[in-house]
C-alpha cells in the first residue's frame, strides 16, 4: 500500500454554541494520494468545509476535533503543538477560501501579504522574497506583476484576487492544496479560468488537491476521487464515473436528479424534499433518513455501514445492504 500523503480516519469535529453542541463532522474518513485530486461534495451544512478546516486546524475558537486522526505522511496532526502546526500550515498544506475579497487583508498590499507567506516558510527574505512573489503572480497569470505587487486587494477584480490567493497558497510549494469553494463567488466564465489554472498548476507543481464544493459540475471534470457528504458523514465515495453513472446513495441520487436537464424542458423539477439536517440534534440512524423517500425502519435507528459495491466504489446505505442480502438469498434459493 502506498503511503498516502494525507489520511483522515474517523474524524469527529463539533462546535460549542449557546444552543448546544453542533456536530459538524461525524466520522469522516478518506485518503489522499500524492498528486491526486480529491473532491468533497455536499450542500451547505454537510460538514465539508469543516472537514477541510479540521485538517488545517483553523477552526473557530468554539470548535474542536473530538476524536479521530489526521495523518500527514504518517504523523498525526491532531497531536501537533501550535508551533508544529505553524510550520505545517502554508508549507505542507495550504488552503484557499471562497471569498477572495474578504480573505485578503484590505490594508496591506498584495505584495506584502505574499511576502509574508514566503518569508515565513522559505529562506528567502526581502528582495528575494519579493522576486518570488512576482514569480508566483506570473505563474498564476496576473499581468504586470511588478506593478500589481504594490497594489491593494480592492484594486483587483474577483478573478484576479482568487489568483492572488492561489499564488499565496502555492508560494511555498505545499504538498497539499485545499480549495474551499474557490469558484463559488466568481462569475461562470472566470470559474472556468480558475479551475483550468488549478489543473495547470497541479500538473506543473505536482501537489495533491482537495476540492471542496457543492457544485457537481466542478467536481466531475477535475477529480480523481469524489466523496459525497451529508450531515457530517460520508454517504458515497468513488470516481466521477461511479458517482454520476451509478449513484448508490439516495442522497446522491437526489442531488443528481435535482439538476435541471436541458433535454427535459417543461418537466417539473425534483428538488430533494424536506429541509437540511439540524446538526444540533443528530438522528440516531442515517442522517438522510427524514428526507429519504425510500427510508426503511432500520434507517431510523441504525447508521448504515459503508459497503463496497460490485463496481468497486463505496456507499453507506441500508438499501444496498438490503439488495445484497436479497441477492444472496436469491442465489441461495437457486441452489
Amino acid at each position, binding site marked *: 500500500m502506498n503511503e498516502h500523503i494525507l489520511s483522515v480516519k*474517523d474524524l469527529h469535529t463539533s462546535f460549542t454554541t*449557546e444552543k448546544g453542541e453542533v456536530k459538524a463532522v461525524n*466520522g469522516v*474518513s478518506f485518503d489522499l494520494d500524492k498528486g491526486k485530486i480529491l473532491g468533497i461534495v455536499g450542500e451547505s451544512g454537510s460538514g465539508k468545509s469543516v472537514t477541510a478546516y479540521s485538517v488545517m486546524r483553523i477552526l473557530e475558537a468554539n470548535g474542536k476535533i473530538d476524536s479521530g486522526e489526521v495523518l500527514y505522511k504518517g504523523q498525526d496532526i491532531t497531536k501537533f503543538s501550535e508551533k508544529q502546526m505553524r510550520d505545517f500550515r502554508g508549507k505542507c498544506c495550504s488552503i484557499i477560501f471562497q471569498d477572495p475579497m474578504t480573505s485578503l487583508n484590505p490594508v496591506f498590499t498584495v505584495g506584502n501579504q505574499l511576502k509574508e507567506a514566503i518569508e515565513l516558510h522559505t529562506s528567502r527574505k526581502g528582495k528575494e522574497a519579493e522576486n518570488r512573489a512576482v514569480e508566483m503572480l506570473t505563474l498564476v497569470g496576473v499581468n504586470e506583476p511588478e506593478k500589481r505587487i504594490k497594489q491593494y486587494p480592492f484594486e483587483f477584480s474577483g478573478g484576479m484576487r482568487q489568483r492572488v490567493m492561489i499564488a499565496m497558497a502555492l508560494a511555498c510549494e505545499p504538498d497539499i492544496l485545499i480549495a474551499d469553494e474557490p469558484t463559488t463567488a466568481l462569475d461562470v466564465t472566470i470559474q472556468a479560468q480558475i479551475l483550468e489554472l488549478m489543473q495547470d498548476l497541479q500538473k506543473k507543481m505536482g501537489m495533491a488537491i482537495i476540492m471542496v464544493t457543492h457544485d457537481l459540475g466542478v467536481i466531475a471534470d477535475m477529480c480523481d476521487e469524489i466523496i459525497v457528504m451529508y450531515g457530517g458523514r460520508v454517504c458515497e465515495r468513488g470516481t466521477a464515473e461511479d458517482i454520476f453513472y451509478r449513484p448508490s446513495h439516495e442522497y446522491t441520487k437526489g442531488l443528481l436528479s435535482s439538476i435541471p436537464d436541458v433535454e427535459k424542458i417543461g418537466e417539473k423539477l425534483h428538488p430533494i424534499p*424536506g*429541509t437540511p439536517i*439540524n446538526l*444540533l*440534534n443528530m*438522528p440516531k*440512524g442515517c442522517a438522510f*433518513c*427524514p*428526507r*429519504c423517500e*425510500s*427510508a*426503511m*425502519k*432500520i*434507517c*431510523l435507528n*441504525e*447508521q*448504515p*455501514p*459503508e*459497503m*463496497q459495491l460490485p463496481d468497486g466504489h*463505496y456507499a*453507506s446505505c*441500508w438499501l444496498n*445492504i*438490503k439488495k*445484497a*442480502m436479497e441477492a*444472496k438469498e436469491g442465489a441461495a434459493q437457486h441452489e
Partner: protein
Amino acid sequence: MDNTNNNIDQMPKKSPFSMQIDLQKFEKATDEEKHQQEVMSNSSSFFKDGMKRLKKNPLAMGSIIVLILIVLMIIITPHVIPYQYSQIITVDGVRDKSASNMAPLKHSDLEKEYIKKGGKVFPHLMGTDELGRDYFVRVVYGTRISLTVGIIASILVLLIGVLYGSISGYFGGRVDMVMMRIVDVIYSVPDLLMIILLSVVLNEILDVNSFPFMQKLGTNMISLFIVFGLLYWVGMARLVRGQILTVKENEYVLAAQVSGAKSGRIIRKHILPNCISVIIISAALQIPSAIFTESFLSFIGLGVKSPMPSLGSLANEARAGLTTYSYKLIFPAIMIALITLAFNLLGDGLRDAFDPKLRR
C-alpha cells in the same frame, strides 16, 4: 446493537452478510416515523425575538427597573414630602435660619424644639442647602427637569432627524446629495460652542414674559432646545438615510416585490423593522447625551434659572461648600450617574437584542 458503531471505526470493507439483521427492519418507514427525527426551531416575529433576547439581558432589565423607580419617585415625592423645591424651611411659621446646610436626617435646633413641643417635622432625607431648602426635594425636582429636558430633546432630534433622513434616503439622487451636503456642514459646526453662544444671546434678546410657560424654564432651556433642534438631529438623519438606502437596495426587498408583495407590506414588514430598531436605539442613547449637555450648561451657569434646580446646577452650587458639605455634590452626582448609566445600558441592551446584523 452496537455492530454499526464498530464498523465505522475501521476502514469499512466488512461484508454485510456477517451481520445479524432482522429482515423486518427493512420495511419502509412511515412519514410519521421520519418526522419524529426532525427538530426545527420555532419561528417568531422579529419583534418577539428581540424582546425575548432583551428580557434575558439582566443589565438592560435592571436599567428599566431603575428608570421606572426613578419616574415613580418623581411622581410620588411631591405628594409625600411636604416641602417645595424653592421653599425655605419655616418652623411653626418662623423662618428658620439655622436650618441651612444641614447634613442628611438631621434637625435644626428650632425643629428639635418644635418636635419636643409635640409637632411633626418631616425628616430632611438629604439635608438642606445653603438657603435652607430641603435638598431631597431639590434633587428630585432636578432629576425631573433633567429627565424632561433629555426626553424632549431626544424627541426633537428623533422627529427632525427621521423626517429629514427619510426624505433624503427615499428620494435619492440630487435631492439626497444636496441634503447631505447641508448635513455635512452642520455636522462640522462645533455644537457646544454654538449652544453657549446662542444661550448668551437669547438671554438678552428673548423677552421671557411674552411666553408665560417659558418663564419657569428660563431662556437658557429654550436656547438649548433651539440648538438641539438646529444641530443635533444630523446624526439621526444620517443614520436613517443610510438605513433606507441599504434597505432599498437590499435583495430581500426585491425578493418581496418579486413574490408579489405590495409596497405597503414591503415597507411595513421589511423596511421599517430594520429602521425602527436603529432609530429607537439611537434615540435611547440620545437621552443621556442631552442630559449631559444640559448639566454641563447648568454647571457653567447657562442652564435653568434659579431657583429651579437641575442636577447640573445643583452640582455646581455644591462646589462652593465642598469641603464641609460634600454630600451636596454626591447626591446629584449619583442621580446623574444612575440615569445616564440606565439609559446607556438600556440602549446597549436594545442594540444587542434588536440589531439583526449583530452576531455573537
